[in-house]
C-alpha cells in the first residue's frame, strides 16, 4: 500500500526547511541548500516553482549572513543562486531583487579560489541574461575592476569579465573606452587559453570591434598581424562554436576596413569554406553561420563571386529543401541566399533552376515568424533582380504574387516595407498588360500604402507603382491612374521626402511615355494642368538632383507630344520674367544625367516640323538657351555633347537670327 509522501520532498517542505535554516543555521543550511541546488539544476520547471515559492531571498539571506570562513556554505549559496539565474530571466530578476549582486561581488575577493570560482560562475550566469543590469564602463574604477578580472587565471573569472563586456558594451564610446584601456589586448591574450575562455573572449572581442572602424584600425590594425593569425588559427579549432566566433570576428574586421586589408592574409575563400562547413551543423552554430556568411559577402561582389565558386548557392539550396526546417534556419538560409543573389545573375539562375527553391522561398512568405517573412521577401527581391527571368514572366504566377500581395496587408510595418521592395521588382515583367497583379488587388493596396504616414512605406509603395507603370498599355495606365487619382499624385510629387518625390516623378514620366498619340498625356492637363504645374514648381525649388532629373524627363516626355504639349512645356520652362531661364541654370549643372535630361527636352522643343517651332526657338534663344548650348559643344559627357549637337542643329534650321 503506498504511503503518503514526505513533506520534506515537496517544494513547500523544502522551502520551510530553508526558511528555518536561514533563521537558525548550523549544518542544516548546507544540507538544505545542497538539496535545493540538486533539484533545480537543469530543471526549468522546478526553478520557476521555487522562485514562485520565494526560495531565492532565503538563499541570499543565508549568503549575506554567512561567515566568510564557512567556505563550503558560501560555495553552496553561490552555486544555488547561479543555478537560479542560469537560462531563466525570472531567476535573474529574483536573484537581483533579493540583493544577491553585492554579496556575489564580495566573493570574488575571497582567499579561497573555490569560493571565487563559485561567485564568478554565478555572476556570469546573471550577465548572460538580458535582464542583468548594465555595467557602467564610464567609471574608471569599474574599468579597473574589469581588467583585473581579465588578468586572473581562473577561467570563470576571466569568463565573467568577458561576459560583462558582451552584455554591456553597446555604444562606440564604450567600445573606445574599453579598447583604450587595453581590454582588447587582454582578450587577444586569452584567445590562447582554455576553450571556454576562448569562446567568451571571442564574443567579447567581437562586441568591442563591431561596426567600429576606428577601434579596429587603432587596435587590430596591420601591426597586429599576430591577432589575424590567431583568429585564422581558431577558424580551424576543433570546436564548431570557436570556429564560428573566429569567423564572426574576421567578418567584422573585413566589413569595417578595406577588403584588401583583410585579403592580405588570404582568408576570403577559406572563411567562406569554413562557414559553409559550419552551416552543416544542425543547431545554433549552423544557424549563426548562415547569418555570418551573409554579413561576410553582402555588398561585396568579389566575395559573392568567391562564394559562388565555392558552390555556396547549391549548398544553400540543398539545405533549403530539407524537411521541417526551424524558423531561425529558414531565416538564415533566406538571408544568405539573398546576399549572394544580390549582384550575380549566375547565382540567381541556380536558385531559379533549382526545382524547389522558389517554392520554399514563397512558402516562407507566409511563415508565422515575422523575421522569416521579411527574410523571404528580401531573398525573393534579390533573386528577382534578374531581367531575364522577369521578362520570361517567371514570377508573375499566382504562387508568387498572391502571398506577396497578402504581405502588403501585414500588421508589421517592416514586413510591409520588405514586401513593397519585392513587389517593386516583380511588377517589372515587361508585359504591356499586367493583369494578374492588377486583378489581384495589388494596385489598390499599393495606392493605399502610398498614403501612409510612414515615409519608408510611402516611398516603396510609390516606387512599386512607378515600376508597374513602366511600358504598360493605355488601358492599364488608365486603371492605375483611376486608383491613384490626380490630387494624391500631385501631393506625392511635392512630398516632404525627396526620395518619394523622385519615384512619384518617375511614375509620371512613365505615365506620359509610350507610342503616340497618347491618351495618358491628358492627365497632365486636367484640372487646369495641376499635375504639370506641380512638376514645373518642383523644377524651380527642388535641390535633390534625382528629383530634378525625373522632373525634367517628365517635361521631356510631354515635349515629345504635339504642339499643345510643347507649348505647355515652354510655359513651364521659359518665363520672360525670370532673370535666368530654369533651362539655362539646369544646363549648367555639374551632374551629367541632369544636363542630358535638359538637352533632350530642348531637342524635343526644337523639332523643326511643328507650326510653332520657330517661335519656340526664338524664345529659347532670347532666354539664353542657345548660347548656353554653344558653350556645351565640348561637354565632357559624350551623351550631352551629342544631344547638344542635335539641338543646335535643329535651331540652325531656321537660320541664324541671333542678331
Amino acid at each position, binding site marked *: 500500500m503506498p504511503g503518503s509522501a514526505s513533506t520534506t520532498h515537496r517544494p513547500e517542505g523544502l522551502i520551510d526547511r530553508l526558511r528555518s535554516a536561514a533563521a537558525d543555521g548550523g549544518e542544516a543550511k548546507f544540507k538544505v541548500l545542497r538539496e535545493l541546488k540538486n533539484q533545480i539544476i537543469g530543471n526549468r520547471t522546478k526553478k520557476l516553482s521555487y522562485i514562485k515559492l520565494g526560495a531565492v531571498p532565503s538563499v541570499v539571506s543565508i549568503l549575506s549572513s554567512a561567515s566568510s570562513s564557512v567556505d563550503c556554505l558560501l560555495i553552496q549559496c553561490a552555486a544555488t543562486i547561479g543555478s537560479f539565474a542560469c537560462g531563466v530571466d525570472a531567476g535573474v530578476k529574483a536573484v537581483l531583487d533579493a540583493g544577491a549582486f553585492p554579496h556575489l561581488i564580495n566573493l570574488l575577493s575571497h582567499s579561497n579560489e573555490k569560493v571565487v570560482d563559485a561567485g564568478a560562475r554565478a555572476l556570469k550566469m546573471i550577465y548572460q541574461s538580458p535582464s542583468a543590469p548594465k555595467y557602467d564602463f564610464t567609471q574608471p574604477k569599474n574599468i579597473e575592476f574589469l581588467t583585473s578580472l581579465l588578468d586572473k587565471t581562473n577561467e570563470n573569472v576571466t569568463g565573467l569579465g568577458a561576459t560583462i563586456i558582451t552584455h554591456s558594451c553597446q555604444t562606440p564610446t564604450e567600445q573606445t573606452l574599453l579598447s583604450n584601456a587595453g581590454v582588447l589586448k587582454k582578450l587577444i591574450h586569452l584567445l590562447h587559453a582554455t576553450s571556454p575562455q576562448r569562446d567568451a573572449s571571442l564574443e567579447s572581442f567581437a562586441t568591442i570591434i563591431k561596426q567600429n572602424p576606428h577601434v579596429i584600425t587603432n587596435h587590430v590594425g596591420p601591426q597586429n598581424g599576430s591577432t589575424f593569425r590567431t583568429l585564422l588559427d581558431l577558424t580551424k579549432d576543433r570546436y564548431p562554436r570557436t570556429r564560428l566566433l573566429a569567423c564572426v570576428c574576421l567578418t567584422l574586421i573585413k566589413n569595417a576596413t578595406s577588403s584588401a586589408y583583410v585579403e592580405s592574409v588570404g582568408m576570403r575563400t577559406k572563411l567562406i569554406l569554413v562557414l559553409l562547413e559550419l552551416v552543416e551543423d544542425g543547431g545554433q552554430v549552423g544557424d549563426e553561420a548562415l547569418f555570418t556568411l551573409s554579413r561576410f559577402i553582402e555588398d561585396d561582389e568579389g566575395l559573392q563571386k568567391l562564394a559562388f565558386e565555392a558552390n555556396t548557392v547549391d549548398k544553400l539550396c540543398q539545405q533549403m529543401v530539407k524537411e521541417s526546417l526551424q524558423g531561425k534556419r529558414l531565416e538564415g538560409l533566406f538571408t544568405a541566399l539573398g546576399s549572394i543573389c544580390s549582384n550575380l545573375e549566375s547565382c540567381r539562375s541556380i536558385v531559379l533552376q533549382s526545382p524547389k527553391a522558389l517554392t520554399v522561398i514563397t512558402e516562407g512568405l507566409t511563415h508565422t515568424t515575422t523575421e522569416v517573412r521579411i527574410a523571404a521577401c528580401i531573398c525573393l527581391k534579390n533573386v528577382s533582380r534578374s531581367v*531575364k527571368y522577369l521578362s520570361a514572366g517567371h514570377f508573375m504566377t499566382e504562387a508568387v504574387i498572391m502571398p506577396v500581395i497578402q504581405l502588403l496587408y501585414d500588421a508589421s510595418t517592416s514586413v510591409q516595407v520588405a514586401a513593397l521592395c519585392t513587389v517593386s*521588382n516583380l511588377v517589372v515583367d515587361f508585359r504591356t498588360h499586367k493583369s494578374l497583379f492588377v486583378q489581384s488587388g495589388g494596385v489598390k493596396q499599393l495606392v493605399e500604402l502610398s498614403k501612409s504616414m510612414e515615409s519608408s512605406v510611402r516611398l516603396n509603395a510609390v516606387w512599386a507603382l*512607378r515600376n508597374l507603370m513602366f511600358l504598360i498599355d493605355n488601358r492599364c495606365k488608365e486603371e492605375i491612374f483611376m486608383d491613384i487619382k490626380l490630387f494624391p499624385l500631385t501631393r506625392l510629387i511635392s512630398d516632404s521626402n525627396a526620395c518619394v518625390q523622385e519615384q512619384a516623378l518617375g511614375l509620371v514620366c*512613365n505615365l506620359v511615355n509610350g507610342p503616340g498619340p497618347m491618351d495618358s498625356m491628358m492627365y497632365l492637363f486636367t484640372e487646369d494642368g495641376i499635375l504639370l504645374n506641380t512638376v514645373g514648381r518642383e523644377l524651380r525649388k527642388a535641390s535633390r538632383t534625382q528629383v530634378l532629373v525625373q522632373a525634367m524627363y517628365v517635361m521631356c516626355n510631354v515635349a*515629345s507630344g504635339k504642339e499643345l504639349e*510643347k507649348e505647355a512645356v515652354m510655359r513651364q520652362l521659359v518665363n520672360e520674367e525670370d532673370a535666368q531661364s530654369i533651362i539655362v541654370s539646369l544646363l549648367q549643372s555639374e551632374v551629367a544625367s541632369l544636363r542630358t535630361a535638359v538637352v533632350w527636352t530642348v531637342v524635343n522643343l526644337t523639332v523643326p516640323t511643328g507650326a510653332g517651332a520657330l517661335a519656340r526657338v526664338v524664345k529659347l534663344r532670347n532666354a539664353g538657351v542657345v548660347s548656353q548650348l554653344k558653350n556645351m559643344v565640348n561637354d565632357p559627357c559624350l551623351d550631352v555633347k551629342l544631344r547638344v549637337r542635335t539641338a543646335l542643329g535643329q535651331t540652325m534650321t531656321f537660320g541664324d537670327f541671333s542678331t
Partner: protein
Amino acid sequence: MPVRMVESPAPSNSSGANSGQTCLQPCSLLSVGQAFSGTQNVSSPQKDEAWRVNVRIQGCDLDHGYLCGTMEALNVPMADTPVVTFWEGEIVDTKNYTFFTNKWKATSEVDIEHWTKFPSFSPLLTQVEVDGGKSLDLTNYQYIFMRWKEQYFVNVGADCGLTIAGFYYVCFSCVDGSINGYYYDPNSSPFQKLELKTTNERRSGFSFSSYELQ
C-alpha cells in the same frame, strides 16, 4: 559665335593606370525602354528576303557590360504570328568583355571578319588583333560594340522551326541611335545584316521611361 566641335573619331590606348578598367558612359538612346525598328536581311542564294524587326531594350547594366531586351521578327514566313525572342548582350567595354568572343563557335578570325564589316571598327583593328582590344579605352568612343545572343523564344515554342543558335555582332551609334549587326551561326547564311533605327513611336520627339530594381 559658333564654336568648333571637338571630334573624337578614334579611341585612345588607355594609360597604364586605368588600363581598360573603365565602364562605358551611359547613352540615353541605349537605355531601358528604348525601341528600335528595321530589318534583318535573311537572303539566300536562291531568294532575296528581309524580315521586319523590332527591338526593345529591357535591361542595361554598364558596370557588368550587360544589356538585354526583346527582338520581334514580323514577317517570318513559317510563323503565323510575329516571333519574339529574348536576347542578352555583352557590351565590349574592354573591362567585362573584349572583341574576342571565345565561345559560341566564334574564333578570333571569325570575330575580326565580322567586326571589320563595321566602318567604325577600322581605327581599332590593329590593337584588337594584338589583344582583342583589352588595352583600348572606348569610354568616349561614339560607337558601342556588342554581341547579342538570343536566349529563348518568348511567344512561341522552341519547336517553331526557327533557330536562335547563333548570335549578332552589333555596332550601336551613340550619335543617332542606329544599330547595325551581323548574325553569325556557322549553320546559317553568313553575314545576315541587321539594320535598326531608333524609333520615336509616332511621337514628335524622344521620350524616356524607366524602372529601378531594388
